């Protein structure tokens, strides 16, 4: 029988056994119990073996049921037969019921301590329970009892030792299995031992070991092609060698032969990995294609990538499915965590961030310090918008491995949006790490550093960084060239699309190569150079990009256009911008915006404008802005531009509405900071003459966006005050601006102008006090000082003022000053006179009252005591009269008025006002000469100074425009900030859309014409304290009067 089995004649074997166990035999050989038990046990063992190797669940079950039946039958014959118990134990083991199997084996072992099969079974149980040392003991005992036992025992020992970490002993055990199987002719090709040895070889992590391991693995595979473990390892191997087809086949076989959870999971994992990496591989391929092609059309490139990606989409899905299957086979994630990682990766790729998140978190539970996982999690959080958590994770990753340049790189990228300073630091760390590690610093990293430095205004550093990023190349020659004398060459090439320079160079044998990954850096460098006013070199670089990379690169074209605009090449700029716009079929809103801006500039640029042209340009600009608006209805910049055009056309209400909307939209977003809208809005208010609102707007803008540190906005503010004729505020504001920007001499000039204007206007005022005049004089002195300082400084070539202009101002101010001194004297004189007049009037009033009182008293006294006292009183009165008369005589020069005053007699105030008015006519003849002399040139001067102020502001504006232009990518809208101001300039011209300013000014000048008549009328104030110290009452009255007068002036 045994021979049959050994020879593989399984059918005969079964037949015989079945016959042997048939009911007839049972009855016939009822007393030969042992043989019957043996037959039944053999059948049981046969079926449990069948069940064990059967992979189909249902048939497996059936086999196990049959085996159970046979064993039960056997134990019915003899309860205590050890071999039956051993068989049952084996069956239970095969079924995976470890505990029951253990109790079965224990029953046997209690009877016979050295029952080898039971020992082996128990060892197996212990092994499964993870008690490897116990298992090892049992195996050893089995070997002692039965030294010739099958190789399986040694295999068991080997496995136990392996699990216990005694690798060398394990290896010996496995090798002995193989030897033993050869010498004992037992199991000549023991697959398990081979596989185990192979695994050990593979784990050695040495090339030789791995090769040896693979050889063994392959032999094992040849011996028995259905060992799942071997299949998995082979697949693993082929995965690393990139033979994805083999991987798939092997793993699929492995999957079909095994039911063991972890092994299956491993297989799925391999399969998924294979698909996953296949996709990556293709992307990699496309990446390489990109590298090679270099100057391929960006669009085509994008298409290619998209194509590959869509075809690979399926593979991603498959990979995902298999990862998922793998994960499902795993009950506890810490047993085999890699599939979670893979699944997470695939889910990221497929955009399922939430699931990816949970998977990566599982990985993190097992490996809490895994940088890759931390980074992946950080990435997911960022994608999910939870930037803070992302930061946390990436920071953790950088902490765990402070030498992981990649992590710092990612940290930097995360921080760019929120904290540029920290981002820069992170990038720099990454750079040093790369350098330390001897790796080449990625160009992207250098580019990022450069851009950040650029944005922070560290231009020199940024330049160095960009140059480092660029490395060697044709551009070096341009830098040196630009530095040397060949600037001429550069300027000569400043012609649209003039690529002559490059052609020359090429014909000279110099190769012009622009690697694709350096284009961005080149572009940024060009922008930087532009900022540094090296527009020549910048222009060459733009051209280089255009020439080499893409003749229609809209970005470079736009930038070139802006550059030309800056260089006042209007026509060229227009062509370039139009080309940029055409290159994108008018769909690139930036190009369209630039074109719009160009039109706008074209409309406002000339001093002497052609109204028709201006109108068409404006119309065109509006059209373009509207076009952008149609494409991107939420484009704030376009809206801003359109509003500016409206403002330019004088539709202030419309533009105000738009500005307000843009402002609201901008304030709703955290990322868009548009202080310019505020400024524009303020400009509109300003142009409408709503100075108070404009002031408020400027102030808010300053506080909100600039920490009150922008002297430019302060200048706008000052101008508003200037137009509102709030001179003191204007001067104060200018002083603030000077304090903020001490080296801006233009501000000083403006301050000087403001003081001069203030003084002039005070002098022209109808009513002013001597103090006011004094303040005027002080202001003028200041102005003179400022102007003369400026003129002195201009000798040092510190600033670009026209000396003559300053000298004129100095001249005018000194002139004004001398005039003011006259005025001051006059004012003071008049004040004195008035004081005297008042004094006299008061004396008179006093006298009158005294007389009246005396009279009354006299009457009363006369009534009461007619006789005795009469004489005394008369004497007193006479004395009094005498005194008064004397006083009268002392003030002879105003006799006439005395009389009139006497006539009126009423309230002091009225009298004086009237007196003043009358006086002005008298005085007119006198003072008129004075005024007339001054007036014409004063008017002239005033005009001149207005103009100066305007041009001066215009200068300011232009510089501002330049500032804005230099950085167009960030704020093309900035160009527009000046619009309102330009407007207001226009308003100064009578022809312009008239606003309150001009009207006011007209009114003012009209009144100027009239006013000199009233000019020196009523400077009424207490001046001469020394005159009447004694009489408190009078002084009090005077004071109130003075207050009244000044109230009225207000």
């Amino acid at each position, binding site marked *: 029988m045994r021979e049959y089995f050994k020879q593989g004649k399984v059918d005969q074997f079964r037949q015989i056994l079945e016959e042997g166990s048939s009911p007839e035999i049972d009855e016939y050989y009822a007393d030969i119990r042992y043989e019957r038990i043996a037959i039944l046990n053999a059948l049981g063992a046969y079926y449990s073996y069948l069940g064990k190797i059967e992979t189909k669940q249902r048939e497996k079950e059936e086999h196990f049921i049959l085996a159970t039946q046979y064993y039960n039958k056997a134990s019915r014959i003899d309860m205590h037969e050890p071999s039956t118990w051993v068989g049952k134990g084996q069956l239970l083991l095969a079924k995976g019921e470890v505990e029951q199997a253990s109790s079965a084996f224990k029953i046997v072992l209690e009877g016979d301590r050295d029952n080898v099969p039971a020992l082996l079974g128990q060892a197996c149980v212990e092994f499964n329970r993870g008690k490897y040392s116990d298992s090892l003991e049992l195996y050893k005992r089995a070997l002692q009892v039965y030294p010739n036992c099958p190789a399986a025992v040694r295999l068991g020992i080997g496995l136990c030792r392996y699990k216990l970490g005694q690798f060398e002993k394990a290896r010996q055990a496995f090798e002995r299995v193989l030897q033993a199987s050869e010498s004992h002719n037992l199991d000549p090709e023991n697959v398990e031992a081979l596989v185990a040895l192979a695994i050990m070889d593979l784990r050695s992590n040495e090339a030789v070991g791995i090769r040896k391991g693979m050889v063994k693995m392959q032999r094992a595979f040849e011996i028995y092609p259905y060992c799942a473990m071997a299949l998995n390892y082979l697949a693993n191997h082929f995965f690393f060698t990139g033979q994805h087809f083999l991987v798939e086949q092997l793993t699929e076989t492995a999957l079909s032969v095994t039911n063991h959870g972890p092994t299956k999971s491993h297989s799925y994992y391999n399969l998924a990995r294979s698909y996953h990496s296949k996709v990556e591989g293709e992307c990699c391929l496309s990446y390489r294609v990109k590298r090679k092609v270099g100057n391929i059309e960006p669009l085509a490139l994008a298409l290619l990538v998209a194509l590959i990606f869509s075809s690979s989409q399926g593979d991603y899905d498959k990979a995902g499915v298999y990862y998922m299957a793998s994960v499902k086979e795993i009950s506890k994630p810490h047993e085999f965590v890699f599939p979670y990682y893979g699944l997470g990766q695939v889910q990221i790729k497929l955009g399922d961030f939430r699931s990816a998140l949970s998977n990566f978190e599982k990985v993190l539970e097992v490996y809490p310090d895994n940088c890759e996982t931390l980074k992946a999690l950080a990435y997911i959080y960022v994608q999910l918008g939870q930037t803070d958590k992302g930061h946390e994770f990436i920071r953790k990753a950088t902490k765990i491995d402070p030498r992981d340049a990649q992590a710092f790189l990612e940290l930097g990228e995360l921080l760019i949006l929120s904290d540029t300073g920290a981002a820069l630091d992170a990038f720099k760390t990454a750079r040093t790490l790369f350098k330390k590690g001897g790796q080449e610093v990625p160009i992207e990293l250098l580019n990022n550093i450069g851009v950040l430095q650029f944005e922070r*205004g560290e231009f020199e550093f940024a330049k160095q960084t960009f140059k480092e990023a660029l490395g060697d190349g044709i551009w070096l020659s341009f830098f040196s060239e630009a530095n040397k004398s060949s600037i001429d060459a550069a300027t000569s090439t400043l012609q649209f699309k003039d690529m002559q320079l490059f052609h020359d160079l090429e014909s000279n044998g110099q190769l012009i190569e622009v690697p694709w990954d350096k284009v961005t850096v080149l572009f940024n460098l060009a922008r930087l150079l532009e900022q540094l006013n090296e527009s020549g070199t910048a222009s060459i670089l733009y051209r280089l990009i255009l020439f080499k990379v893409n003749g229609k690169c809209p970005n470079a074209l736009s930038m070139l256009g802006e550059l030309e605009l800056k260089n006042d090449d209007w026509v060229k700029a227009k062509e370039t911008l139009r080309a940029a716009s055409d290159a994108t079929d008018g769909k690139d809103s930036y190009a369209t915006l630039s074109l719009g801006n160009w039109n706008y500039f074209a409309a406002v640029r000339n001093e002497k404008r052609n109204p028709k042209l201006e109108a068409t340009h404006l119309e065109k600009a509006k059209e373009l802005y509207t076009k952008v608006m149609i494409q991107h209805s939420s484009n704030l910049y376009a809206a801003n531009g359109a509003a500016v055009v409206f403002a330019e056309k004088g539709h202030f209400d419309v533009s105000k509405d738009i500005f307000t909307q843009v402002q609201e939209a901008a304030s709703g977003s955290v990322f868009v900071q548009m202080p310019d809208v505020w400024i524009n809005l303020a400009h509109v208010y300003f142009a409408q003459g709503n100075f108070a609102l404009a002031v408020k707007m400027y102030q808010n803008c300053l506080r909100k966006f600039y*920490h009150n540190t922008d002297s430019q906005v302060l200048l706008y503010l000052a101008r508003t005050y200037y137009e509102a004729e709030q001179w003191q505020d204007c001067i104060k504001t200018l*002083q603030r601006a000077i304090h903020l920007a001490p080296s801006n001499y233009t501000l000083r000039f403006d301050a000087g102008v403001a003081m001069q204007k203030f003084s002039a206007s005070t002098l022209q005022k109808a009513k002013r006090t001597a103090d006011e005049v004094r303040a005027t004089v002080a202001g003028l*002195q*200041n102005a003179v000082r400022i102007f003369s*300082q400026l003129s002195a400084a201009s000798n040092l070539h510190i600033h670009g003022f026209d000396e003559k202009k300053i000298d004129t101002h100095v001249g005018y101010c000194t002139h004004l000053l001398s005039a003011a001194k006259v005025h001051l004297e006059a004012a003071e004189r008049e004040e004195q006179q008035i004081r005297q007049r008042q004094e006299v009037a008061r004396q008179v009033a006093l006298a009158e009252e005294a007389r009246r009182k005396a009279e009354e008293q006299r009457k009363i006294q006369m009534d009461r005591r007619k006789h005795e006292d009469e004489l005394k009183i008369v004497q007193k009165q006479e004395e009094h009269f005498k005194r008064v008369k004397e006083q009268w005589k002392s003030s002879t020069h105003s006799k006439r008025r005395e009389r009139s005053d006497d006539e009126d007699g009423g309230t002091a105030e009225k009298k004086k006002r009237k007196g003043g008015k009358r006086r002005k006519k008298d005085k007119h003849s006198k003072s008129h000469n004075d005024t007339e002399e001054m007036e014409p040139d004063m008017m002239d001067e005033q005009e001149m100074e207005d103009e100066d102020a305007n041009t001066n502001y215009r200068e300011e504006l232009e510089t501002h425009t330049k500032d804005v232009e230099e950085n167009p990518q960030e704020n093309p809208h900035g160009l527009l900030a000046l619009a309102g101001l330009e407007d207001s300039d226009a308003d100064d011209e009578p022809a312009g859309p008239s606003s309150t300013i001009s009207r006011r000014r007209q009114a003012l000048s009209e009144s100027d014409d009239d006013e000199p008549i009233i000019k020196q009328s009523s400077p009424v104030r207490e001046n001469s304290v020394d005159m009447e110290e004694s009489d408190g009452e009078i002084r009090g009255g005077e004071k109130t009067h003075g207050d009244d007068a000044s109230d009225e002036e207000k």
Partner: protein
Amino acid sequence: MKLAGIKSVDNAHDDSVWAVTWAPATATRPPLLLTGSLDETVRVWKSDELILDRTNTGHCLGVASVAAHPLGSIAASSSLDSFVRVFDVDSNSTIATLEAPPSEVWQMRFDPKGSILAVAGGGSASVNLWDTSTWQIVATLSIPRVEGPKPSDKSGSKKFVLSVAWSPDGKRIACGSMDGTISVFDVQLAKFLHHLEGHFMPVRSLVYSPYDPRLLFSASDDGNVHMYDAEGKALIGTMSGHASWVLCVDVSPDGAAIATGSSDRTVRLWDLNMRASVQTMSNHTDQVWGVAFRPPGGNDVRSGRLASVSDDKSISLYDYS
């Protein structure tokens, strides 16, 4: 180390307060606080209660800087009109009016011995040294122009000198410019020594450590406070934290801390051992133009005081311990 608010005076001036300094104690009185403002006045305050002692007029434009003689009896104030007015702290009598056209006047500092007043000369790219007995200019320290600027170039204004500081031994002067460089001079030889680089925006304030004549602190519009070894031309450390321009810096008398004021409306206290900001005071509502530690001396030597002034017209006094 920490700051604790003692008192704030709102509307201490009629307009922005731009400058602050302490006049040291004299035999007859405790230290006084001097503040200068856009309202063209200098005001003198009695310490701790911040009672207004006097209002000094006499400037025609905003007062940009005030400096006090180490003996405490005289002080100088300068305004945007480029006049320096030297006056007696206790009587307010004018001692001298200094003017050195065409250079304007920005920050001023008396040397530790009180014999020289250094005045930052703005666009003249120089520092003028005035003798405090004769009130004559004894030297003009000019920053050499490194690269020959083209006439059309605006680089002339690059070396615009804003701030000035004396080393505690009185041998060195450092001055900060609009372009962010700091120039160091030898006073005795009246000679330019070298530049300190590292800032990229105007350096509005400088101060030497009271104990280490090499250690210099600078505040710049780039938002950073730098520590330099002023002799070795080395940047020792950078301290950042302010959200906007750093307008002023002063070092505590014990040399362990510095205080800074910024456009971000805060006053920060920095621990020099940790090189980190340890406290942020945000009681001002506008940019903080000046901070000043009270020099030791007088009756209450122990208690440190810090004063800060701001565009919001207010003065704040803190206890420093």
